[in-house]
Each structure stands twice: as structure tokens, then as C-alpha cells.
């Protein structure tokens, strides 16, 4: 008994969610997405500076030098790992470094480290896209969103979360394991109440959250998981839980 809502974007247009942290570095990109690609761009607070282009795909944008810097590896690995938990598909747009006015453009020096990073990313199934400029990156984001839309995975849920209780429900859904922002939006839209979700079948969670079967199963199990009272007792003294 779950009915799925219609797309917020006008026909022919796509919907992209952007983390607030992308604003400072991405004004030009967002303007381009809105004006040239007629995309509905919605800024929200995600758990990292990335874009969501569908129910299952997140996109990160990195400069080539960023990806080549050895000191970034740990952080990049953590980012990729955490996105892998939330999304079926992850895409990295690698953007050529901009040359500042007056600076002569230096050719990018490819290192062994850079190549091994690419090899590692490709090996784990991260999709790579290559861009020369901000405008091209905007085009790639719009193309990805359109492709996902054609595959029936486009973001098709109202993006505004109205009212205090709706906001609370959204926050609760976000604290379910491996639920991303679009899943949470879908759930707050498609279930009558939080109890409705909690008592739903795996099939209904899958449908109402617009998520994969295995993710729906994990949520279903989590909602029925019985806390070990021993663990809960020790956690009172702060040993298990922070």
C-alpha cells in the first residue's frame, strides 16, 4: 500500500541534489546546471561534499592535482568507502586544474602514485569521468542525471521538507543504516507515518524508499533487531557507545 510520488522537476529537466559545502567552490557550476541544462538544483546538508544525481548514484568532483596528491589518499579512501555504503554507483569527475591568470599552465606530471590511485578506483567499480572545465563538469553531471532518469532511477520526490514533524522523520530515516538523503526523502514522502515504515514489508520498504532489495532487507532487519541488554547496560558506563 505504498504509492510513489511524481517528479518535482518539469518534464525534460532533471533533478540534482548538492551538498552545502559545494556552494563556495561551485557557484559557477550550479549556475551552469540551472541555466544551461535546466536542471533543478537543490542544496541540502549531506554528509560530505558530493552531488546526488539519482536514487542510487553519487558524484564527487576532484581536481586532477587533488587526486594526484599523496597526502589526500586516506581521506579519499574514506570518502569512497562511505559513499559505497550509501550508493550503488559512485562516479568521480576528475577536472583539469585551472590556471590562475598570469600563470603559465604547467603540464600535469603523472606519477606512479596517481596511476595506482586510478587503478584502485577502477578496480572497486568507481566510475571515472574526465573534464576540462567547470562547464564541462556541469554538462557531465546533467548527462549522468539524464541517463539515470532514463533508467528509471531519477530523483522523483518533492525536495522541500515541510513542517517540523516531517523534518524529524527525515532525520530519523537518515539515521537508519546505509540510507542516503534521497532514500530518506522518498521514505518521508511515501509512508504515512514513521510507524507505517517500521511495520512495512521488505517489498514496501524497497518500493517506498526507491532502493535496492538488499538495502530494504537491511533496514527491515535493523528495525526488528533486538538490542542486547548486556551491551546496553555496559554502554551506560560509556564503554560501548560514545
Amino acid at each position, binding site marked *: 500500500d505504498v504509492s510513489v510520488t511524481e517528479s518535482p522537476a518539469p518534464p525534460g529537466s532533471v533533478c540534482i541534489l548538492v551538498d552545502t559545502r559545494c556552494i563556495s567552490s561551485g557557484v559557477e557550476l550550479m549556475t551552469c546546471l540551472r541555466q544551461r541544462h535546466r536542471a533543478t538544483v537543490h542544496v541540502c546538508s549531506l554528509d560530505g561534499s558530493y552531488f546526488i544525481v539519482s536514487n542510487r548514484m553519487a558524484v564527487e568532483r576532484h581536481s586532477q592535482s587533488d587526486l594526484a596528491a599523496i597526502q589526500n589518499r586516506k581521506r579519499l579512501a574514506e570518502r569512497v568507502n562511505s559513499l559505497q555504503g550509501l550508493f550503488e554507483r559512485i562516479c568521480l569527475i576528475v577536472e583539469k586544474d585551472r590556471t590562475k591568470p598570469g600563470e603559465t599552465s604547467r603540464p600535469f606530471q*603523472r606519477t606512479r602514485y596517481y596511476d595506482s590511485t586510478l587503478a584502485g578506483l577502477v578496480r572497486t567499480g568507481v566510475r571515472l569521468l574526465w573534464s576540462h572545465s567547470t562547464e564541462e563538469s556541469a554538462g557531465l553531471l546533467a548527462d549522468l542525471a539524464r541517463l539515470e532518469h532514463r533508467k528509471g532511477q531519477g530523483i522523483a520526490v518533492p525536495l522541500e521538507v515541510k513542517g517540523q514533524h516531517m523534518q524529524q522523520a527525515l532525520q530519523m530515516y537518515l539515521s537508519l543504516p546505509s540510507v542516503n538523503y534521497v532514500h530518506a526523502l522518498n521514505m518521508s514522502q511515501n509512508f504515512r507515518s514513521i510507524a507505517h515504515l517500521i511495520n512495512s514489508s521488505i517489498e514496501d520498504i524497497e518500493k517506498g524508499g526507491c532502493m535496492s532489495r538488499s538495502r530494504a532487507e537491511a533496514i527491515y532487519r535493523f528495525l526488528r533487531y533486538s538490542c542486547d541488554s548486556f551491551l546496553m547496560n555496559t554502554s551506560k558506563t560509556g564503554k560501548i557507545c560514545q
Partner: protein
Amino acid sequence: MEAETAPLNAVPPYGHVVSSDKWRNSSLIHSLKGGGVKILYENELGVADFHLPNRSCVLYVSEYDIIAGNGYKRKLVRYRNVGTSFQQLVLVENTRLSEQYFSAVQKFVVFDLGLTLLPVSGQTEASQLISQIVHGEGRENPFRRSSSSRLLDPQVLALVQQIPGVGKVKALTLLQHFPSIQQLCNASPVDLEPFMGQAVAQQIHSFFHKSTAAGP
């Protein structure tokens, strides 16, 4: 048209690359050898140029292929249609001459065919990338997802604390009597009252059952 023979599904041993015979005297092969990669030649690789030990294969699209026109597209389609269990990579020469076509090539390779594209400036860079893929098999991949078996209890506890008016102490008390989220959700205010004040008990119940206005 040449006869399509079933391509060999040979996985080279560690540290080796299986190369299509036509690459025998290329600078790519020379610098691969220089990078400590051992080469096995094979006539029956099908469309692919190289097979790598991590079950991936490589098709090389040169600057010349791109500038010469559409022939490379047919080759790419055949490459994609082989239906191999290998991860299919496409190395694309992105040079001053081919740069203007790069975005169209990328659209075709990634969006239309769903293959992985890695740009290189020429055969030397290609050999460096291939040797990293070959040698990388022996190392741990930092991007491989660690299947973390996180304890669920702390996550349940954190979720219960999302209920307005419920902090850590109340959350722990609730979970001792209603150990799962579902049990807590389905408890009536009367069930909750022995452990919480009447007002909080009502608040918890209504948090779960109140309509999320937009829902149908």
C-alpha cells in the same frame, strides 16, 4: 570482414601481461618490459589489445584512430559485445591533436557503451598505467570496501535518541524494556508510562504515529 573467433579468456599470471601479437615491437611493450612486466604474446585475443592479471582487458584507442574517424567506434562496439567476464578498460590517447574529439569519445565510451575510459598522452603513459594495474594486484587496494560489521546496538541507540524529548538515559531505559525499534514503536502510551512520565510517553507514541503530512 574477419571471422569472429571466440577470444581467449586467458588470465595472465601475476606480473605478466598477455599482449596481442600486433604490439610486439611497440614502444608501449618496450616500456612495459622496462617497468618489470613480463609479456606473453597471443594471436587470439579478439578485439582486445591486452589482458591483465586482475581479470581486466584493455583496448587502446590511438590519436590516429580518433582523427581518422568512425572505424574505432565499430571496434569499441565489438569490444563491448564480446561478453567477457573481464573488466573492460579503454585507454584513449588524449593529445593536442585528438583533444577536440575527447568529449565526444568519452560520451560514446562511457555513456553509450558503459565502459571505463582512462586517458593517456601516449604509449609511455599507457605503459606506466598498465604496469601500476599489473603490480597493484599484489598490493592492498585502499578503495576496496571494508565490509564493516558494525555493532547495531549503538546505531539503534542513536536512532532512539532522535525522538524529541529522549536523551541517552531515557533511550537506554526504553531499550531495556522494548529492545527493538519495532517493539518501541508499537508500544502504547500506557505500555510506556511505567518507565517514562505520562507526557513523554505520549510524545514518543505520537512521534511514531503522527502523520508525516505529505504522505498519502
